[in-house]
């Protein structure tokens, strides 16, 4: 009798999480496109074990390249600790690529760009949101979707100018007094980031 109670409890617990959103998973993968060759090969090796899921089945498929240039750019801006912008339609983004500020408009050619510390600005109508980005990658796909993955980003208005100046002075001093290559490289990185922060505050 107690076993039946336990089973009923388990089945209720399976249903409950979707009702009580507090403890349920936020993301629901709509479809499950599996890689059939992998599943076939798996079944031969381990017939009793279910094949592990792969990333393709866990994310929404991307829309195909449209025939004409769309009017808006869809932006995804992700950081390790949150998705800052997810599937937002904007007019333009300017990313701090290693070659300089790169503007991305709808219909931009597909590009992979590595980012350097600098300002990322998102333009939507008349609103401009600026973030200082530490580094990362930006992918622009042919279907006018831009993915920006960064390690750390802060809105520009949250940067403290006094700390930036102090940091710049500290790292310039360290660069001067650095002896090993590793110290020189670390100090150089510090100087680069802080000068970019300085430029972000003034520009």
């Amino acid at each position, binding site marked *: 009798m*107690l076993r039946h109670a*336990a089973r009923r409890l*388990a089945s209720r*617990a*399976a249903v409950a*999480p979707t009702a009580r959103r507090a*403890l*349920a*998973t*936020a*993301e629901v993968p709509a479809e499950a496109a599996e*890689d059939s*060759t*992998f599943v076939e*090969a*798996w079944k031969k*090796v*381990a017939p009793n*074990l*279910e094949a*592990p*899921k*792969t*990333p*393709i089945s*866990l*994310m929404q498929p*991307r829309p195909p390249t449209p025939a004409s240039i769309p009017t808006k750019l869809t932006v*995804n801006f*992700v*950081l*390790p*600790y*949150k*998705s800052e912008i*997810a599937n937002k339609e904007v007019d333009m983004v300017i990313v701090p*690529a*290693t*070659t300089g500020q*790169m503007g991305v408009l709808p219909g931009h*050619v*597909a*590009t*992979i*760009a*590595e980012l350097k510390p600098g300002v990322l600005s998102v333009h939507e109508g008349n609103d401009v949101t600026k973030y200082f980005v530490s580094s*990362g*990658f930006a*992918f622009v*796909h*042919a279907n006018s*979707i831009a*993915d*920006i*993955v960064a*390690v750390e980003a802060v809105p520009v208005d949250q940067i403290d100018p006094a700390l930036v100046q102090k940091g710049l002075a500290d790292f310039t001093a360290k660069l001067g007094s650095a002896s090993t290559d590793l110290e020189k490289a670390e100090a150089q990185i510090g100087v680069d980031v802080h000068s970019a922060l300085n430029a972000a505050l003034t520009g």
Partner: protein
Amino acid sequence: MAPLGARSVSTQIVRNRMKSVKNIQKITKAMKMVAASKLRAVQTRTENSRGLWQPFTALLGDAPSVDVKKNVIVAITSDKGLCGGINSTSVKVSRALHKLTSGPDKESKYVILGEKGKVQLVRDSRSSIEMTVSELQKNPINYTQIAVLADDILKNVEYDALRVVFNKFHSVISFKPTMVTILSPEVAEKESEAGGKIGDLDAYEIEGGETKSEILQNLAEFQFSCVLYNGALENACSELGARMSAMDSSSRNAGDMLDRLTLTYNRTRQASITTELTEIISGASALEG
């Protein structure tokens, strides 16, 4: 069983068992509460990190059935036990992957994160273990720690394809083993030229002064650290969820056992009282007549 005619000696044994079972029940209930509270914190961070690996899959596609010479299986397991079967499932999946990707001219090695995986895999695949890492969760998982770890792994291990195996957290009672494949830059270029599932890497212009291979190298490293970060968080969530349900069923079992022991205790107690009474009464009736 006590010999016939003895007085209430055997209830002591049952009482001791009841005390220990009640303690176990209290401990497992407390462990469940602790796991539940930790889970709440880690779950929000996990859900926030889910967007991190999607841009890479959107760019490079996914090729789990890629055929390469050097495979490295990175298995993420937990350090602590009492978390149900998640570590065993990860190890089973890793072993099957090892079988799948080993052959006459290709090999596969393990990199194990977490004590429980190491203990299980050392028993039969010690020669294939390249590197083990433990105490992952001593401090709360953050990106910097994982980036340093990823750097360490990439420095010490030669690979054509990295397969990260972990338990993805779907809900408090459901965890599915998941495998993410990351290709080394050379293999990624080869696959995209061959027109595999990687998608058209050549269609993408490389912005920047560096060569394409340098950018792809940085990309692969970045992808690995992002995937490892998300995988570590998901596995931590799954571990806590599995521990919650394991401790919950453990406290329920302890409760059942306590009920059964209480019945036995009462029966034994009543039997000894009845024995005493019958002795007295029969003794009294013997004296009378």
